[in-house]
């Protein structure tokens, strides 16, 4: 499969869907990994780091969306990204659709296959992909509140 990640465009969002380590894991299993240039810049992952892990750097998000079978992101797709989603493309990211009717309707309309991190369950009914962010948000909540 061709797996792609792009630079997050939501304001002050520097997280990224794939790290060089994840790129390496996908490549090791025989997949292709496409990365928009600068995707990891905000957190110290350079294009070269991704190339060293077997990834391919593309100049724009549009190039990644046009080629990848699966888009791995962090935040829900923004307006510019929604326009680039292709029918039957896999979107793997946080979506939080229950609080966002507009996004829900658009994703239905685009006929994508969208897997939301926050609703994947494990055998015990836990939410494994939400847990790490909940841990961090809980800690930050007190820091912010104390300011």
């Amino acid at each position, binding site marked *: *499969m061709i*797996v792609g990640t792009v630079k997050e465009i939501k*304001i*002050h*969002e*520097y*997280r990224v*869907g*794939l*790290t060089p380590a*994840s790129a390496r*894991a*996908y490549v090791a*299993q025989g*997949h292709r990994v496409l990365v928009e240039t600068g995707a990891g810049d905000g*957190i110290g992952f350079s294009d070269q780091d991704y190339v060293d892990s077997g990834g391919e750097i593309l100049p724009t998000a549009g190039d990644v969306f046009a080629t990848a079978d*699966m888009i*791995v992101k*962090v*935040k829900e797709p923004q307006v510019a990204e929604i326009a680039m989603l292709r029918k039957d493309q*896999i979107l*793997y990211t946080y*979506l*939080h*659709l*229950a*609080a966002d009717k507009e996004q*829900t*309707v658009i*994703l239905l*309309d685009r*006929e*994508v*296959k*969208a*897997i*939301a*991190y*926050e*609703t*994947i*369950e494990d055998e015990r*009914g836990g939410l494994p*992909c*939400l*847990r*790490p*962010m*909940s*841990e*961090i*948000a*809980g*800690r*930050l*909540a*007190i820091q*912010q*509140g*104390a300011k």
Partner: protein
Amino acid sequence: MPGVGRGHVGIIGGGIVGLNACKMAVGLSADVTVLDLSLDRMAYLDDIFSSQITTLHSTPHHIEEVLRQSDVLVGAVLIPGAKAPKLVKREDLAMMKPGTVIVDVAIDQGGCFETSKPTSHDDPTYMVDGIVHYCVANMPGAVARTSTLALTSVTQNYGLRIAVEDVEGFCQGNAELAQGLNVYKGECTYEAVAKAHGLDFTPWFEAMKVAASS
């Protein structure tokens, strides 16, 4: 601080967010009260933190009690995949001490305070009736590198399976993982989302059957 009364931290919801908020608040030597619906969860928190925190059953009465005493109030409520319940109404703010800070961690799911609306790291707070509201929708984005490493360490395992099995195989292999599928080729396959927006709900296996036969 010696000679200074301890700050009061109220935490609504004792799940992962609540537990981690507890850790930090206890570390700051605050006076911490956690509200939860589950007796098992309260017993667990009580075992971990012992006399460092107070646990209370999350009833309207106890919520009011916490509203009155808190200097910082954390909304940490989650109903998986669904909109967060509005546990604190606008008129309830009048019970709170002016200048109290509300941090609504549930804001991604719509927030658990009626007066919450999403903010960004650029302009994170606003005031309603003398109460400071902090409702940044992507809080972990503030520590982006740590968050990315923590997130991808979990998402990667599932992502690799999707890459091998495709979405169809991934879901068919495990019903819990299939809960991740929210939208499939024009069908809403997650019940709580469909319900929240008055849309038709199609179980994922039905949606795949229909798509495969068309």
